[in-house]
């Protein structure tokens, strides 16, 4: 593919023809803020926070939808650009609750980050504010439309990746709102609660219900792992605080990208469920009694060994597990064939 060379803030950068100015800036290591842009989704060029100055062009073009051209000169830091970005932020903040103190996205919010970066205060412009009730009538997602900046990423995620198109813009002007058809809550729509809309929301409008008040975003340790449910093999981040899994968030998975299903994203609660087995149990007179590992292991060894000695190796059998790791199944296969001396090992591949 042909390449083109352009200059961004004095830095020469060569990118494939067809790249946007935003993509070229990223290659050049030049930061440009974005709200509505998402590399995986279509480009509406709507929020205008990514505007740049290009001599010869009328107005300030949005870098996310402007194609980079050979010899183009781009400036991203001129007074006109900074003024435009500040105004956009002031307008957004004019209709945004000033409650970063309790917001679940505090520390992971683009609006907060850019307001800080550009020194924009919340109360610069006075005007009407929305007062929508917060929607939390489902077990998975909290929607606070008062915080929505109408970037539309959730809409495009639901439509273009999830293929459901449950939500879209409704009403006009100041009353514009992202909602399922007929302005119903998610719970009354065909929403499958994959939560992929939450994964792309840049502000506190959409958040994971299970993570509310469980930890500030900067206190959370993210551990990338693989989903324990179906055979697709999605990757996600376990969100850990104080030795507990408090949530699941998207990562960039080889199979799934950021997409997850309702089980992968919201089905982690079993990890710390009070029903978890925490100690070996031995049945005595029909009742389970707690036992030490040593006692339990010795009993199992004695019993399985005894059966082998008395009835022969093939009187024992093993059901291994499609839920456990490769390493564990490998050891089980070794244990069966070496220690028990039987090929009676199988697992639930047929269920």
């Amino acid at each position, binding site marked *: 593919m042909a390449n083109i060379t352009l200059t961004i803030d004095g830095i020469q950068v060569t990118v494939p023809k067809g790249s946007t100015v935003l993509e070229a800036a990223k290659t050049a290591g030049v930061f440009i803020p974005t709200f509505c842009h998402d590399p995986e989704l279509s480009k509406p060029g709507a929020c205008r926070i990514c505007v740049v100055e290009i001599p010869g062009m009328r107005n300030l073009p949005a870098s996310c939808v402007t194609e980079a051209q050979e010899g183009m000169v781009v400036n991203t830091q001129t007074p006109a650009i900074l003024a435009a970005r500040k105004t956009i932020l002031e307008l957004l903040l004019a209709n945004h609750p000033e409650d970063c103190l309790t917001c679940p996205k505090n520390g992971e919010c683009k609006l907060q980050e850019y307001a800080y970066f550009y020194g924009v205060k919340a109360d610069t412009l006075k005007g009407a504010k929305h007062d929508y009730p917060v929607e939390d009538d489902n077990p998975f997602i909290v929607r606070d439309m008062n915080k929505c900046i109408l970037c539309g990423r959730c809409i495009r995620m639901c439509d273009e990746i*999830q293929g459901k198109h449950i939500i879209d813009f409704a009403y006009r002007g100041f009353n514009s709102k992202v909602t399922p058809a007929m302005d119903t809550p998610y719970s009354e729509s065909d929403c499958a609660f994959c939560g992929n809309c939450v994964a792309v929301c840049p502000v506190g409008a959409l958040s994971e219900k299970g993570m509310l008040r469980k930890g500030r975003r900067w206190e959370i340790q993210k551990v990338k*792992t693989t989903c324990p449910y179906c055979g697709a*093999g999605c990757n996600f981040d376990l969100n850990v605080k104080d*030795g507990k899994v408090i949530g699941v968030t998207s990562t960039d998975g080889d199979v799934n990208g950021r997409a997850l299903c309702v089980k992968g994203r919201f089905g982690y609660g079993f*990890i710390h469920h009070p029903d978890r087995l925490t100690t070996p149990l031995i049945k005595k007179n029909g009742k389970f009694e707690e036992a030490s590992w040593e006692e339990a292991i010795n009993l199992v060894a004695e019993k399985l060994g005894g059966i082998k000695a008395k009835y022969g190796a093939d009187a024992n059998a093993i059901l*291994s597990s*499609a839920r456990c790791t490769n390493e564990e*199944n490998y050891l089980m296969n070794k244990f069966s064939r070496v220690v028990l001396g039987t090929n009676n090992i199988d*697992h639930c591949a047929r269920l």
Partner: protein
Amino acid sequence: MTNGIKEIADADFILATGTNTTEGHPIIGLQVKKALRNGATLVVVDPRKTEMAEMAQYHLQIKSGTDIALLNGFAHVIIAEDLWNKQFVQERTEDFEALKEIVAKYTPGYVAEITGVPAETIREVARGYAKAINASILYTMGLTQHICGTHNVFAVANLTMLCGQIGKASSGVNPLRGQNNVQGACDMGALPAFFPAYQPVANEANRAKFAAAWGVPEMPAGPGLTVPQIINAAGEGKIKGLYIMGENPALSDADANHAVHSLENLEFLVVQDIFLTETALLADVVLPAASFAEKDGTFSNTERRVQLIRKAVEPVGNAKPDWEIICLLSTAMGYRMQYDSPKEIMIEITQVTPSYGGITYDRLEQGSLQWPCPTTDHPGTPFLHTGKFGRGLGKFNPVEYVEPDELPDEEYPLVLSTGRRLYHYHTGTMTQRTGALEIAYAEEHLEVNPVDAANLGINDGDFVKVSSRRGEVTVAARITEKVAPGLVFTSFHYPEVAINKLTNAALDPISKIPEYKVCAVKVEKLPATAAEKAS
């Protein structure tokens, strides 16, 4: 899968048979949707009107268990209309004549009678599949959980080879495996007839190889038993001791009452799990295991992709990772097993598992790898059977349609089929304890067609007794056209609706898979008082 998951999006023809993809494998479903947006044709073969069926251009609502007739019907049309890939058949396959002979009688008219799918639809779909540039066949247990499950897969393979729709990107035979590491458990030799990487136990050289690798004089040579055979043998008193890791046959096995009786008949049962499951309750010893979040290791997904899982938190209480427990037990029984970490186990795996030969944790830290990956400089294998099949020439295995083991009759007039719901997973051990999923999908129901409901005098929400020759459950009825008349459906996620008490344990003679997808049942409305009690 012969192909990768993401390749589905680039197929221009998808035949999804016996897979409720958007519920059972939602993220794979996204690739099907992407293919549709790219202009692909989707054909869904399913007795139920699933979301997939609604997305499809063709929904073939076949009678349960008639897949072979349908697939042979496609092959018949393709041969009759001279649409088959002569070059592929000539260069890469054998026994085409045998296929031609068998499918000769499967005319669209004959197949329509058996399956209930109109003859013209059979012709259109057959033409579409044969003429497609890339055609991918997706299937899951709807195809395999039949007494003819293996033959169903043969019929799929025959169709694929007939049209040369294999051995290239986005085109092939793609079983979507149902569990996070069912692929890996098979790869690792948790199978009666195979050592890791499907090296047959029956082969003396393989036994010698593993005996040497594991430092013992010899390996057992006798053929091992599969899950249903183990359960039966326990019932007959031939198996005395059973060690179960992370499985719940008391709810998941077909004819579950029989499974429970068999487990009760054991001299000794040890169950290793994260919860006190219905199966663990029957055990003599229960060993508490760590969950996936509490240990390191690898899972292999349905497209043979090996990926890391990482320990995020300490095991709860005194629970231990399964690998540690196996090591403890093995050592206690006189064979010392000691590893510092799963990483060290993987090093041993690669030495005896050729397809995993090049897989190391250091490489996996950089990104996942699809086996076969024989050497550390091998990039992995996205799709299989390019240029040549494993056995050399692809063999046509023509198969005849047979009826399911148990068909409806006067006493049990309806067909019961079982499957999954989006919000739950298997016997619900995990998904019923999340604080979220079980709230969103709190109760199970039985899907009943309005015609049958009217005949039985059942209203939506009424409690009904569903019974087969083997057992009965009580469940609320959901009147819906999602199921065809004569068919009822529910999931196996609910201990309260232990539907596998009803299912038929008749086995496919080759794979030993039970016929979960078809059994004969009757549905009776419960009197109000009994229903109240049940609820």
